[in-house]
């Protein structure tokens, strides 16, 4: 295992300390590093709180700030945060407008946020994101995973909350965005969880995993390594088939690196995916390319397509001031 770490048990704490110090103008760390919150609070708005296992940086702490999240609760690597973290984050940032939890659809995340919601005082609501088309909804009762599309929900709902939308409006908006968002991921290599010390799975030099999530879990199928166009074609087809959007629909295309894939390759994938989606009749009106929802050091990427309308486009474009997204 080749990583910049001191001891496997301290990875998260040291990294969070570094994050908080580097972005002290934007965020502060809660006691015992239970959460990261905005430095300047606005308790009159709906408080947006997300969280999940660590190892997906900059998700979620990198999205804390004006126009996006109010707080984020980082769990251990690939491990949901615990209810006390979530409850204390809510206490720290929420006012009378209530708290909205944005939760990726994983058993652990859902149960921990659910326990937190049971304990927390004041009004709470929860949006569960489940954008991963690699998981066929019908077969598995747990439903689809929440992956990179979560960023889009957080940005758009974050902008609405910043503008004063109430809790019910935020929930409805988040559910609408989530329902119009689809992702699919592919891994060229496994990642290595620090505490495990070895790669989660072993892939041959000529193999890749199609349909992976963001926790280093193996994908749906192990297939032969293919060219970028073939990969992009399989992914955009799965996404576009599932979205079934009318021709001419406007969309946001997010090409997301998993941590070990360089920018030059992400833009190449963007080029392929954009072309293919436009051939399917979508109009790519907004774009984001970078490593935003990662799986530690995994080489791989995901494509996310989110259908836009005038309202969501304006909310996407609205100012945001976080460590990882700024405009």
């Amino acid at each position, binding site marked *: 295992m080749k990583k910049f770490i001191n001891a496997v048990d301290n990875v998260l704490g040291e990294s969070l300390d570094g994050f908080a110090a580097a972005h002290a103008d934007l965020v502060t760390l809660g006691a015992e590093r239970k959460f990261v919150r905005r430095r300047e609070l606005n308790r009159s708005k709906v408080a947006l709180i997300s969280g999940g296992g660590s190892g997906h940086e900059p998700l979620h702490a990198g999205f804390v700030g004006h126009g996006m999240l109010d707080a984020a609760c980082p769990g251990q690597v690939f491990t949901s*945060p615990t209810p006390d973290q979530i409850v204390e984050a809510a206490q720290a940032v929420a006012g009378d407008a209530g708290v909205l939890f944005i939760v990726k659809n994983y058993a652990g995340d859902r149960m921990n946020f659910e326990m937190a919601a049971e304990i927390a005082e004041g009004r709470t609501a929860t949006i569960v994101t489940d954008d991963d088309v690699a998981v066929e909804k019908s077969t598995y009762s747990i439903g689809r995973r929440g992956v990179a599309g979560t960023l889009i929900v957080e940005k758009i709902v974050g902008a609405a909350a910043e503008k004063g939308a109430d809790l019910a409006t935020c929930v409805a908006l988040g559910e609408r965005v989530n329902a119009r968002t689809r992702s699919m991921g592919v891994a060229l290599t496994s990642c290595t969880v620090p505490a495990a010390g070895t790669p989660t799975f072993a892939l041959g030099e000529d193999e890749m995993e199609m349909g992976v999530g963001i926790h280093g*879990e*193996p994908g749906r199928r192990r297939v032969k390594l293919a060219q970028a166009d073939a990969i992009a074609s399989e992914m955009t087809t799965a996404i576009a088939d599932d979205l079934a959007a009318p021709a001419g629909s406007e969309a946001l295309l997010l090409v997301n690196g998993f941590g070990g894939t360089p920018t030059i390759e992400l833009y190449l994938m963007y080029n392929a995916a954009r072309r293919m989606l436009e051939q399917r009749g979508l109009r790519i009106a907004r774009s984001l390319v970078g490593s935003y929802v990662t799986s530690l050091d995994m080489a791989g990427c995901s494509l996310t397509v989110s259908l836009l309308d005038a309202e969501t486009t304006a909310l996407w474009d609205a100012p945001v001031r976080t460590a990882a997204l700024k405009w």
Partner: protein
Amino acid sequence: MSVPSETFKSLVKAAAEQVIASAPELTSLDQAIGDGDHGTNMKRGCEAVLGKLDAISAQPLDEALKMIGKTLVMTVGGASGPLYGSFFLAAGEALSHDKHLPDDLADVFGSAVNAVSARGRSQVGEKTMLDVLVPVLETLKTAAGQPDLIARVRTTATEAVERTAPMQATKGRASFLGARSVGHVDPGARSSCVLVQAVCAGLEARA
């Protein structure tokens, strides 16, 4: 509810230590069909329990079990944290409401298993810890009062773990693998078995 005996303390200690010792195996099972953290999660939780063991053992038994549950909830994280946490919280809760050990063991264990099922929205057959916990509960019921109860529980747990291998997961992370989850033992089923075996071994040693 009386303060738990030294037996309780030593059983908790043995169970926690056994899980900690099994952490590498649990992690490697979780690497195969999950995300490779089950061993680390359980280890973190069990270490926290060990760290508070004196305080826990100073409580009445129902409160002691709830404290274990709370500690697991606050330290394990992931799916297993709320599930094992709910298990012990519910067990303690049952004891707070007119249930007594050892007579009501099956009842108390049943409340705990129900809590897991409710929190996880899951049932037996979905390739989870329930596939060990539910068979163990059945044995506790059917073999209650029998002299070979402990031995039968141990056999049940061991066999139940192996029976998760051919299952296809429909809950938890492994469900995302679809048919690829078949052929691997479920990590949570294994950790449940480790806990059950450790408690049984402790009871046998004192018998």
